[in-house]
């Protein structure tokens, strides 16, 4: 049983960029801002590529939903070792209201179309921190889910997954097909090397639209306003422990 694995790769504003809110408060500035692959998705790609190297997986397909530049994100996944790419093009204008539910529907549709056995996505994207795609995709497909994975191993025909949960680790076993979301400690993603970048250039990338997959991406929500987080208020200095305790009591903090 060698699995066909689908990996979600989201193009996000690079983690090192200081995000700025647009003056009209409809979103954040993305023009001319450095983007890269969502770090949790990189972990997902790495895991899938390792599974293929261990012959657990037969083919690794990287999918990204987004504007034309998402192709770059897919190329990065291909350079890391994914076999082929699927780019579901979402016009830039629709990106601000493009939500996890739409991605989940697209992933579900592609999973059926490509006869996928396993979907791995990052547990959340570092831009919207929604943490919904894996769960909703599993629900739409009616597949088992193993979220926040820090270890994935083959156990007979199933997968044994260690999940990071509040206060510890949880071991679960999932039947295939399944949806897994990758947590931080699952692995350390590799660096793309030049020979692999060269190879990636020759790998196929299929372009689809949500319509091709029968997915309606009309918006269910409306962004009312995007605000900067409030700046931290200045603190005060206290002279001794007694006044500290008094102040804390006064503010009803203890």
């Amino acid at each position, binding site marked *: 049983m060698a699995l066909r694995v689908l990996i979600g790769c989201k193009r996000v504003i690079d983690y*090192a960029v200081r995000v700025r809110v647009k003056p009209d408060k409809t979103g954040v500035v993305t*023009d*001319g801002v450095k983007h*890269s692959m969502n770090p949790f998705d990189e972990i997902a790609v790495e895991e899938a590529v390792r599974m293929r190297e261990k012959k657990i997986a037969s083919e690794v397909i990287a999918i990204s939903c987004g504007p034309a530049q998402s*192709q*770059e994100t897919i*190329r*990065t996944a291909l*350079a890391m070792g994914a076999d082929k790419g699927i780019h579901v093009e979402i016009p830039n204008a629709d990106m601000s209201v493009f939500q996890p539910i739409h991605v989940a529907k697209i992933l579900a549709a592609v999973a059926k179309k490509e006869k996928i056995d396993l979907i791995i996505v990052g547990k959340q994207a570092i831009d919207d921190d929604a943490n919904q795609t894996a769960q909703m995709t599993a629900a739409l497909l009616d597949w088992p889910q193993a979220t926040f994975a820090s270890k994935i191993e083959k156990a007979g025909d199933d997968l044994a997954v260690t999940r990071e949960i509040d206060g510890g680790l949880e071991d679960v076993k999932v039947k295939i097909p399944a949806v897994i979301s990758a947590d931080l400690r699952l692995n350390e993603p590799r*660096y*793309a*090397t*030049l020979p692999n*970048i*060269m190879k*990636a*250039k020759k790998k196929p990338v299929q372009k689809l639209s949500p319509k091709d997959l029968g997915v309606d991406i009309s918006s269910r929500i409306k962004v009312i306003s995007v605000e900067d987080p409030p700046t931290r208020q200045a603190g005060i200095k206290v002279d001794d422990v007694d006044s500290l305790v008094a102040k804390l009591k006064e503010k009803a903090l203890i």
Partner: protein
Amino acid sequence: MKSTRQIYSLSRSARSYIFGSQHLAPLLCRSYAAAAPATTPKKKSVDKKPAESDSFAFNLFRGKVALSQVLPYPVKLEGEMQEHVQMIVQPAEKFFSEINDAMANDANEAVSPESIEHLKNLGAFGMLVPEEYEGAGLGNLGYARMSQIIGENDLGLGIFVGAHQSIGYKGILLYGTKEQKEKYLPDVATGRKYAAFCLTEPSSGSDASSIRCRAVPAADGTHWVLNGSKIWISNGGIAEVMTVFAQTPVKDPATGQTKDKITAFVVERGFGGVRNGPPEKKMGIKASNTAEVFFEDCKIPNENVLGEVGQGFKVAMNILNNGRFGMATTLAGTMKHCIGKAVDHATNRTQFGSKIHTYGAIQEKLARMCMLQYVTETMGYLLAANMDRGVLDYQVEAAISKIFASEAAWNVTDDAIQILGGMGYMKECGLERVMRDLRIFRIFEGTNDILRLFVALTGMQFAGGHLRELQKALQNPASNFGLLLGETAKRAGKYVGLASVDGTLSANVHPNLAKPAQLASMSIQAFGYSVEEMLVRHGKNIVDQQFLLWRVADAAIDIYGMVATIARASRSLDANSSSAVMEENIVKLWCNIASERVQRNLNVLKSAKDAENFSIMSQISQEVCELKGIPASRNPLGF
């Protein structure tokens, strides 16, 4: 106006000065110019038409606005190449932020083995080498982008990989036979072997044609035997493949006489007779290996001659010319890094109740830093783009970019340290390392002093050729009426002043930049006129007027910076890019400052006061040299 005869003699003597090698000359300039691929006249034929060129810098010396290589700003990557470069940029940036430790490399005086392994995987040792030879196949613009990342992070590492490919094996890329490329490029492009460029010798620095390393053909004619030594060779202690320059006996087919001429060789350490000294202790770029290299009866097979026998000087100068754009883009990255540090501090540090970036003293520094970074970056990428599209006569632009970049980076780093104050002076901050690393850029690969003379003399040599043409026309006005009419109109305009400033620049840039464009046009015209006046006034003695040539070069540098940045910002304004407003401001500032400085420098050329200053400086210098420094008796206390 002086007679035609004098103009002739100027051109001839300047030419023998610049191109000849038969006389001892105090400068290297003559030889640098020999690298000019498109404009080098093969013979000193007096009747030859003056060389034509589309180079902006060349034409500047005639007061002519030649924009085809500058406007529209030609820097762009498209399609597959753009994707390819982007793919490599991402892991490269990640490598520097997560793996490489510039401070540790500096302290250990070596790039860590882990970093080297990653650099190999990234293709960083073969960025310009075609894919068929296992390189990254980036092209010059791709290399420019990568070098900028390196410059932002680790200049010592930059010299390690730069000396390897930008000069070390560049000769094989440019001049290698198919066999030489097949034999050497895969090994060096992947970093399995390191390369070095061996030109400098103990007695031969700027005056590169005076090298003493010598190779003679073996009696049986199967190989050459090389003897001599080279100093300050980057990667000299680790290189397996070296581009070595040595004197070789060459027979002149015309006269039958045998004379020594320089030939380039590809020397493998394995040939035997190659040794190196211990790593030199340096001020900066400590992560790169610098060592003396000795050749003792080193046997070089005939097929390892690089280029033609006797053509080594041209090979050396073309390699250096070819690598200069990378210094500009590297240092643009360095400045970006320094600006980031300074801004971070200025926006967080509170003194006298306000963040220090709100004070004019800091604002002026930050603005100047941004301006210098922008001009450098603009020049570096422009040069790379022109090289990618096959422009050959870029040697003056390359020299300008190297001079400007290395001095701009020094000033920007200095200002960054000043803004950070005590923090900037601390080792932990990292800027002191940058400053130490930077210093060498004004010295190596052609000192800025020599390159200034090169810029001025190469340009004037070009202008001199055209002036001579005009002089000829004056002798026979009837048959050259058209030429004269054009020149008269041009000259009349100059004397009248602003009225007839060439409008081609203003007409072709974004309207917001009309004023900077006008300032640039005025500077170009004034420059051309000053050059002509200088040529007429000083005749063949121009080559000895170093005080003046220095000012000519500075003016040329400023003007080139003006036109290049106007072109770039104009493109950004046309595209309504998010940085357009800032770029427009930077260009306005730069053109105001630069045009004023151009005016001042050109005024110096004919000012009696400045002539007096130069004469005084000569005297002071001579005196201090005779006294071997400042004597103790000159202390105000008298002892």
